[in-house]
């Protein structure tokens, strides 16, 4: 089976990827690789992963999201996760996966605002 490719959109210096379909393990790993390459190619300052349409996040995907945030961070890109459904937040914590160190926001709009602030702060700090 062909792996599902998730579209990665770019607005100014922010990348946005919305997970709309069920990811099996191989397509999830493909998604991680695609994202990191796209960050490198576009020199994006921020990345939003929107999970509004995800009704299940197991330990594999949860860990992958933590990894993406850590890896993008190493490349100098801020990551915000948006749109976690209540059921997903509950199961993640009960699983013992609290996505520590990963910034989250209620929705895409708030995530974009938070990211813009963080990017601005890091820009100020670098000057």
């Amino acid at each position, binding site marked *: 089976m062909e792996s599902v490719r998730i579209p990665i959109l770019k607005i100014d210096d922010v990348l946005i990827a919305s997970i709309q379909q*069920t990811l*099996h*393990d191989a397509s999830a790993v493909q998604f991680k690789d695609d994202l990191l390459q796209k960050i490198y190619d576009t020199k994006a300052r921020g990345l939003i992963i929107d999970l509004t349409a995800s*009704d*299940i996040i197991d330990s594999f995907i949860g860990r992958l999201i933590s990894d993406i945030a850590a890896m993008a961070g190493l490349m100098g890109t801020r990551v915000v996760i948006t749109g976690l459904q209540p*059921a997903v937040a509950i199961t993640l914590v*009960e699983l013992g996966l609290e996505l520590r160190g990963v910034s989250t926001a209620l929705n895409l709009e708030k995530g974009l605002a938070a990211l813009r602030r963080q990017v601005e702060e890091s820009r100020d700090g670098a000057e």
Partner: protein
Amino acid sequence: MGQSKAAVIRSDLDIVIARTLARDMARALGFGAIDQARIATAVSELARNIFLYAGSGSVTVREIEKNGRRGLEVVCEDQGPGIPDIDLVMQDGYSTSRGMGMGLPGAKRLMDDFLIDSRDGEGTIITCRKWRL
């Protein structure tokens, strides 16, 4: 007699099939959105364990009833190497492969009943249940 459905686990695609099966049955049995997510997530963890540690196996979900309460039972079966030390793998953070320490204790927390029957070199049967409130 309640309905019963099974999925064969042979690849990572089958993990998705098994958890979709479980979620669909949970929904049909009247479980709410959060319990549906708990059941689907637990099945995802258990099916992935089968794939990673045993290579292949099966996941069966069925409707159950006890003392007037309805519920859903998940039976995960494989003929893999078995679990030599169950207490050890039930510790949070324990991991033998690819950092999968969360699998069993996490799945147990998401379900109500959780039983492991494992024989060295013969395989493992994990039975777990979720009851309707």
